């Protein structure tokens, strides 16, 4: 058949060469090349089977994965050598094959690699050896043994130490190739139910300080061809419990059958205690996971699913009015009392230990007060807490140091300790047994040594009046303080920058004027004109003063060089170019002409009326020019 096929191909090839079909030729030559190669001796290695187990350490009841890789030309399906403590599903969860062509020492070899993944379950504690048998190229090989350690604890120890016990779940297997899809096909009902997430609390109506248990449950389908993966590879974090004190969670794993499908059930029981009174909500426990389904061909297909629990509301009621000996404990407790001795000397300390055991939030279990011991000095207590993480069985000891200060027969009365029992909804009071103490006189009566706490053990309680602390008897500032208000401080912060900014701007302006003489001339034009006018009027004549004053002003305002040497017509011409108001130009020209006329006429003295008229005209014109020339 093969020969026929080969012959057919060769025949086809020759035919196509003759017909000169180039692309067909290339394809057919390639096929021929691989077919010819297949007749060469197959590659064979000394250890063609390699086996690895992931993880290498699991708990009883937990799953693991075995990867079998076989190299060779003619490979039969591998078989596991039965082991007592583990069960391995003979049907692989993944099957893969790859072929490589190797050319070594001028010899061409084809290496086929078969990869199979199997899923197994650990049944018994111990170290189990896993071995695989397979026929490769007609010869039976056995793989090197691989050891799987099965521990009693369901928690695998191979996880990174940074993960919390809650997160320490078996890492899901990783695959090199997979296809992703979000649309489940025929397997959708199974995939939809492959993960069931539940959360519940032991009680929803509780008292302040009462502990309850939050149970988070994840049921994961236990089929060889379906696996659930989370983005991190770990169990998602529990819901937000910031309104609660959170105790140590208990983890358990079991199997369950739901709708004829096996499920692995992981349960986390977290003790919680509300931090306040009112209604508190526990947010949903969210699983964003992908379900990997291995189809008939062994190729994985991934579907995204999101499962979340319902939010839970918890109503926390306040405690009723408390009895006198209540110190804050809520739960169910017992108390025992022990004393280190009953026959002591004055100053020798006794140790009274009260031990409170039971169920409740340990931080609320406070030490009781020891009252009525007027014959002794009581210090402490030293607090010791055992098993404080597990709130269902706490043990808290309070060690008081009692230092007798006088001799005689005394009694430590029964100590009452009230706690609130949330089951009954009322307070209960515990009582310790009373102790009779005989205190003998010590040799030294003056000083009593208090024992107990390290500080007090070395301290001497002096009964005599202590020395007065020194006073400072001279004070120079005995007068009412004047309080500076906020307003004055704000003013102190705001005012200096404002004033300084004004000063700074003034300086800048001054600088800019110094750097620009034309601007400086313009700014001082009016003042200079009047100054010139006054000077000339006193020393010479009014017409000359008016003429020069006016020319000076116009020259300064318009930046003219030597304005005093200009004629009235030249001044008028310049004004025409700069000033729109023709009337004012005409007036300026007339005044200047009049002044020129009077000057050229050679009149030594002008009449007072003329002077007054010129002066008025000068002042009026100069004011008008101030408005016109900007």
């Amino acid at each position: 058949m093969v020969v026929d096929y080969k012959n057919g191909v060769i025949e086809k090839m020759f035919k196509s060469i003759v017909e000169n079909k180039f692309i067909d030729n290339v394809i057919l030559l390639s096929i021929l090349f691989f077919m010819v190669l297949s007749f060469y001796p197959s590659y064979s290695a000394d250890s063609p089977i390699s086996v690895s187990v992931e993880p290498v350490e699991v708990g009883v009841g937990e799953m693991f994965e075995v990867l079998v890789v076989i190299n060779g030309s003619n490979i039969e399906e591998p078989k596991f050598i039965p082991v007592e403590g583990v069960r391995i599903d003979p049907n692989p969860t993944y099957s893969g094959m790859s072929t490589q062509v190797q050319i070594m020492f001028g010899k061409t070899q084809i290496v086929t690699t078969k990869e199979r993944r199997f899923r197994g379950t650990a049944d018994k504690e111990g170290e189990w050896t896993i071995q695989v048998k397979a026929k490769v190229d007609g010869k039976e090989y056995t793989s090197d043994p691989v050891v799987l350690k099965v521990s009693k604890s369901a928690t695998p120890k191979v996880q990174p130490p940074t993960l919390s016990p809650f997160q320490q779940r078996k890492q899901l297997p990783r695959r090199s190739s997979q296809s992703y899809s979000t649309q489940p096909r025929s397997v959708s009902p199974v995939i939809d139910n492959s993960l069931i997430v539940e959360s519940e609390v032991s009680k929803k109506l509780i008292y302040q300080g009462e502990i309850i248990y939050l149970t988070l449950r994840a049921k994961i389908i236990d089929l060889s061809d379906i696996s659930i993966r989370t983005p991190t590879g770990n169990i998602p974090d529990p819901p937000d419990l910031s309104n609660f004190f959170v105790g140590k969670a208990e983890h358990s794993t079991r199997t369950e059958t739901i709708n004829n499908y096996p499920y692995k059930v992981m349960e986390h029981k977290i003790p919680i205690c509300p931090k306040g009174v009112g209604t508190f909500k526990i947010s949903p426990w969210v699983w964003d996971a992908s379900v990997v389904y291995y189809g008939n061909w062994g190729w994985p297909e991934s579907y995204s699913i999101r499962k979340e629990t319902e939010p839970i509301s918890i109503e926390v009621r306040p405690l009723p009015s408390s009895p006198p000996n209540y110190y804050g404990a809520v739960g169910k407790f017992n108390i025992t009392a022990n004393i280190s001795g009953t026959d002591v000397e004055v100053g020798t300390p006794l140790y009274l230990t009260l031990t409170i055991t039971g169920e409740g939030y340990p931080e609320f279990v406070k030490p009781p007060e020891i009252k009525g011991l007027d014959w002794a000095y009581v210090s402490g207590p030293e607090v010791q807490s055992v098993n404080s993480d597990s709130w269902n069985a706490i043990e808290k000891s309070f060690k008081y140091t009692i230092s007798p200060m006088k001799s005689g027969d005394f009694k430590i009365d029964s100590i009452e300790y009230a706690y609130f029992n949330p089951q009954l909804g009322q307070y209960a009071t515990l009582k310790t047994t009373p102790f009779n103490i005989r205190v003998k006189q010590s040799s030294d009566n003056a000083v009593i040594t208090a024992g107990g706490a390290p500080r007090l053990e070395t301290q001497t309680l002096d009964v005599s009046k202590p020395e007065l602390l020194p006073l400072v008897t001279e004070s120079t500032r005995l007068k009412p303080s004047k309080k500076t208000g906020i307003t004055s401080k704000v003013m102190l912060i705001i005012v200096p920058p404002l004033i300084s900014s004004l000063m700074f701007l003034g300086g800048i302006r001054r600088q800019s004027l110094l750097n620009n003489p034309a601007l400086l001339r313009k700014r001082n034009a009016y003042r200079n004109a009047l100054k010139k006018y006054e000077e000339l009027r006193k020393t010479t004549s009014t017409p000359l003063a008016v003429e020069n004053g006016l020319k000076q002003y116009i020259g300064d305002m318009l930046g003219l060089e030597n304005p005093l040497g200009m004629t009235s017509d030249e001044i008028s011409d310049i004004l025409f170019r700069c000033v729109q108001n023709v009337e004012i130009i005409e007036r300026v020209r007339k005044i200047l002409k009049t002044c020129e006329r009077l000057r050229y006429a050679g009149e030594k003295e002008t009449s007072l009326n003329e002077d007054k008229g010129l002066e008025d005209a000068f002042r009026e014109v100069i004011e008008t020019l101030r408005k016109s020339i900007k």
Partner: protein
Amino acid sequence: MIFTFCLIILWNFSANEIYQKTFQTANEAYYSGNFSVAIDNYIKLIRGGIEDSIVFYNLGNAFYHLGKKGYSIACYQYALELNPSLSVANENLEKVLNETQRKLALPEEPLWWRYLFIFHYGISKVSTWIIATFFWIVGWVTFGVISWLPISIRKYAIFLCVVFVILGTVFICSGIIKEFPYPKGVVVVEKTSAHILPSENSPSRFELYEGDRFLVEREESDWCLVRSVGNEKGWVKSKDILIWSKLPVYLSSSEGIGM
């Protein structure tokens, strides 16, 4: 005008005399072991508006001998706030704290904060404001004259201006912090419970003993939310504690200290 001026001088003088007399009376009462009388007289001075670290220090001593360690600690703390260099107050505070049940340290600001304001811990509020005012005004005056100075020396003026303004800003920040400090308090009763909620029925979270100091994070009618040195938080009855920044107001109030 002169008459009014003389009248004011005379009135001031006589008032000062009265204060000195009250102060002396208080000191004498203290040395004669009559601490209650001494306390009454010191409180009289405080009610008269005297805010002197020495008066508060002496008052703290009197409270100490009366067995009121909480009040005594509050007085020393306030005296040190007024005058951080009053070493005797520091010594006595140490002594009283050593005699408290737990010798709890005062919750401190974060380390970065303490390093940032390392300079301001030993300076009183008044001194801080004086320094701040000096640097601030000098800095801004320098800024104002920069544009009036010859160009050759302007760069030095700018440098001085920047330095003074920065120093002024830093001391103003310090002054503001001292003006509005985190209220700190001390327990003045033998023992009190810090509850989870501001209610008698709420379970207690931890116990505080006389002389324990803490930060007061919130005040609500009869309750205060306090934070102790271990960052433990709880609600304590206002009457069981004393916030020392309010000490003059508290001592001046009609209720005062019930003795």
